[in-house]
């Protein structure tokens, strides 16, 4: 099935990715993530002593502050903050630094579609840069179901607004490189990277479409996690000032 996209991509093709870490001097960790024209900056401060009110002091607390490109934060941004917070809490090992708070500030530089997945990827890279203990990385993808029924990945803002009837933001763990035999990393016959950390959908789709999105998202998350791994290895070898 051939699908015409404005920028000539195929339906499974992601936009060019770019990620650089350690770009802010005063933050403990920072990363910028861009996916085509969508660009997000994330900064991590912490762990600082003490947790906020209503948080469990036996665990580390994660605080997410979302800064939109312009204006004040509203309900959508509050929702993004909540999703980011819950997602990052599930990737970080919270028992290592009990009774501490780690703040993550997410600044939107430019929004050209797939904003929340970009923010999750940026925040995750910033956490790695800050040296916060994590179980695995989180890899976020945006899948769109178009009005004519096909599924495309990583939509631009224009595609999101004009053609789409529904979209799903999916977050998976990164694929595991391990010396252990294949079978030991499988849960219920599925590899561990197939598990969904976070799923957010908007708009109506059939249940089958959702599972189709899942399949596509998983395939794309493998490419993304390869990109993340390469990026992390590259920068850790050539940065001498790290730490």
């Amino acid at each position: 099935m051939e699908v015409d996209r404005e920028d000539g991509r195929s339906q499974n093709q992601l936009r060019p990715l770019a990620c650089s870490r350690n770009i802010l001097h005063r933050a403990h960790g920072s990363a910028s993530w861009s996916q085509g024209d969508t660009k997000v900056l994330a900064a991590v401060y912490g762990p600082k002593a003490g947790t906020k009110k209503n948080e469990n002091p036996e665990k580390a607390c994660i605080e997410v502050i979302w800064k939109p490109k312009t204006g004040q934060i509203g309900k959508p941004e509050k929702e993004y903050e909540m999703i980011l917070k819950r997602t990052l809490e599930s990737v970080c090992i919270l028992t290592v630094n009990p009774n501490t708070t780690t703040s993550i500030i997410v600044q939107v530089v430019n929004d050209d579609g797939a904003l929340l997945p970009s923010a999750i990827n940026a925040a995750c890279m910033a956490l790695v840069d800050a040296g916060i203990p994590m179980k695995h990385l989180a890899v976020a993808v945006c899948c769109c179901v178009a009005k004519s029924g096909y599924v495309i990945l990583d939509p631009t803002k224009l595609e999101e607004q004009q053609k789409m009837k529904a979209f799903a933001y999916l977050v998976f763990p990164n694929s595991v490189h391990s010396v252990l035999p294949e079978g030991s990393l499988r849960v219920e016959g599925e590899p561990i990277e197939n598990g969904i950390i976070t799923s957010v959908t908007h708009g109506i789709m059939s249940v089958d479409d959702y599972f189709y999105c899942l399949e596509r998202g998983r395939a794309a998350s493998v490419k993304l996690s390869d990109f993340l791994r390469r990026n992390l290895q590259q920068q850790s070898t050539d940065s001498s000032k790290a730490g």
Partner: protein
Amino acid sequence: MGLPNASGDLSTEVEVDAFRRLFPLRFYEKHLLESIRPDARPLGRARETTIALGAVASANGSALAKIGSTTMLAAIKMEVMTPSLETPDEGCIGLLPLAARFPVSLSLLKTPGRPAEAAPVVAKQLSDTILSSGMINLKELSLVSGKAAWMAYLDIYCLDADGALFDTALLSAVAAFSHLEIPVVSLNDDGKIVLSEEQGLSDREPVNKEKRKINLSSVPFSLTCVLHKNYILADPTAEEESIMDTIVTVVLDSSSQLVSLQKPGGTVLAYTSAIQDCIALTRQRVKELQKILEEAISGMEVD
């Protein structure tokens, strides 16, 4: 965590209570092994659900929904407004500015203040769900194209928060919309549309003679599940939500289309089979809720 022979030590009532407070997760896991929950429900069963329509006399449509002890009151007030310029010929504006207000806390087991934090998120999800499900055809809310349309103000009050906040909020909103009766309006001498009763124009020809009820086309219903290891617990209480933190909310409409599937993080990764199980549980629940709503509506008509 000690207590190697904990089940043997749970002989008296006091100790059960102490065990529950000290080792909440172990307490739940012991129940889950027996496929039962502390409130005597099987894992897949939702709590008792009731809907009372017309709870607020001054609103145009209202409903009180209860799932277990989670209680939400939804009320809709209709107002005439001028539609926005972007959609003048349809006049299809019926915006739903939601104000889901939660009290600071009413449930004792939960940390105080949490529902207040959840309020904007639940409100956002609710307005997304209602608008994207296409339950209400906004064109039906038009009175005179480009000049006047209905604005439905939906307010939801949380009277008691004990888990499954979104489910209860959606149920109360849906019930309030099905109870909604649009007031009669007519043109006054200045050519403006006003409520007939308020302005004493009841003798005039009403503008909206036939359109007194809104057609709800595909009604969304939701079910929240908690995942823990391989167990799926439908319709969690606040205690269950706070102990086992992986929450999946599935919203299906009456034609079994997926309106929303939310899983914000959590320690358990959801595999395809778990997602399928959650959707299957939601399908059953949708049927239950449809029946409950129909009964509530038919109960109203008898009165």
